[in-house]
């Protein structure tokens, strides 16, 4: 297999032309998010360029503190993103979400790196990109799960109050909300598995193939990472909601939302 074709700056800049197409369609459809598109593309570019330099440095100097530092930063950023998208949560709920996201994310990363791939956990070449994929997907799942949960609770407030008045326990009332939100958070991952390999060649596999890895090796990694992503989404959303919903009522079973 050949190594990857290196992009020169001009070739690379050509891809930005596609953003002009997006911009034109947004203007035509009066989608008032032009600023977001510009800011998001610039932030994405800046963050990835920075990540490129930082990763190059870390790969050249693979000291454990660098890997750990990157993981801490990644976990912190994912927690921050989830919580900033769900500002209405109470403090204890936020704590539960942060803890669930970080512990389940890291546990699955550790399992993946040390038990499945069987390399040193502090090897940045494996740990950093794999944790990025796992934490990123956990973040999206938890965000979606929480959004669904809080929105449903808001729209069904009348039902909740009525059942509380009639002497139904908050656990019994809120558990169905947890279950529905978990299902909503899981569906995109489950659906994406259906089309994998036929409709889409996922990012990690594409990357490996482009850089010269045999497709047969690339698929093994891809299958492993997809299963890890499904697991982390399920467990992190479940823990966030299952332990989080208990912060919505007190010992006297009074709702505190």
């Amino acid at each position, binding site marked *: 297999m050949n190594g990857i074709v290196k992009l020169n700056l001009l070739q690379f800049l050509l891809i930005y032309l596609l953003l002009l197409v997006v911009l034109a369609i947004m203007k035509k459809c009066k989608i008032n998010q032009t600023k977001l598109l510009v800011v998001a593309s610039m932030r994405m570019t800046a963050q990835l360029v920075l990540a490129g330099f930082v990763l190059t440095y870390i790969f050249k100097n693979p000291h454990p503190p660098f890997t750990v530092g990157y993981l801490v930063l990644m976990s912190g950023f994912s927690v921050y993103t989830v919580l900033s998208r769900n500002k209405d949560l109470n403090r204890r709920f936020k704590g539960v979400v942060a803890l669930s996201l970080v512990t389940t994310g890291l546990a699955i990363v550790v399992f993946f790196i040390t038990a499945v791939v069987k390399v040193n956990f502090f090897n940045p070449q494996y740990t950093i990109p794999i944790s990025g994929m796992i934490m990123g997907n956990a973040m999206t799942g938890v965000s979606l799960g929480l959004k669904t949960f809080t929105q449903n609770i808001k729209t069904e407030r*009348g*039902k909740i*109050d*009525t*059942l*509380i*008045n*009639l*002497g*139904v*326990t908050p656990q*019994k*009332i809120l558990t169905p909300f947890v279950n529905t939100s978990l299902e909503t958070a899981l569906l995109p991952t489950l659906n994406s598995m259906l089309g994998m390999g036929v409709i889409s060649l996922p990012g990690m596999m594409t990357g490996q193939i482009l850089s010269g890895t045999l497709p047969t090796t690339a698929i093994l990694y891809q299958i492993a990472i997809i299963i890890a992503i499904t697991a982390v989404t399920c467990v992190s959303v479940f823990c966030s909601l299952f332990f989080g919903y208990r912060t919505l009522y*007190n010992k*006297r*079973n*009074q*709702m505190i939302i």
Partner: protein
Amino acid sequence: MTLFSLKGVKFKDIISYPNIEIEQGKTTFICGKSGCGKSTMLKLLNGVEAFDSGSLQYCGKEITEYDSIELRREVLLCGQSVYLFDGDIRENFKQFYAYRDLPSPDDNVIKDYLAVCSANFKLSTNCATMSGGERQRVFISICLSFAPKVLLLDEPTSALDENTSTELFENILRYCSKRDITVIAISHNTSLVRQFADATINLED
């Protein structure tokens, strides 16, 4: 016998209740302007809201000493906003009973409770297509069917005309007095209060 006794009860520094005693077996109406704390008082009585200071006793014992869920089942609050599940009347009884971990009553029992609440509809009637007043009566009949010791009614006739309101109250009070259920109600309808109140609590005084 005194059923409830409130002494110096304050709620979130917004509402200060006067000292109040509510007698068992007497139909008590709570009156007062909007926002004076009538609905909150009912919520304090069945413990779904907490008060900040003072003493609130039920049957001579502080309300906080009771198991909160048992208390709510005994002192049942039929709230102001009516909630019914999608589906017909039978399905609604079934769903509410499932939430309370009880087997759904059979059709005849359901019909009896509907009759008490002047809601003689077919059990297969879809609740979504009912009027506000009809839904309100079905909801009250579900609440009543749980056989509480105290029934708290928050504006039970808000969506009903004068005649149906009177008929509903007559039926409910007759049913409750036979079964030793004490009724505490909020109503803006002064003629209902005049007709049915054994005692009145005016929160504006």
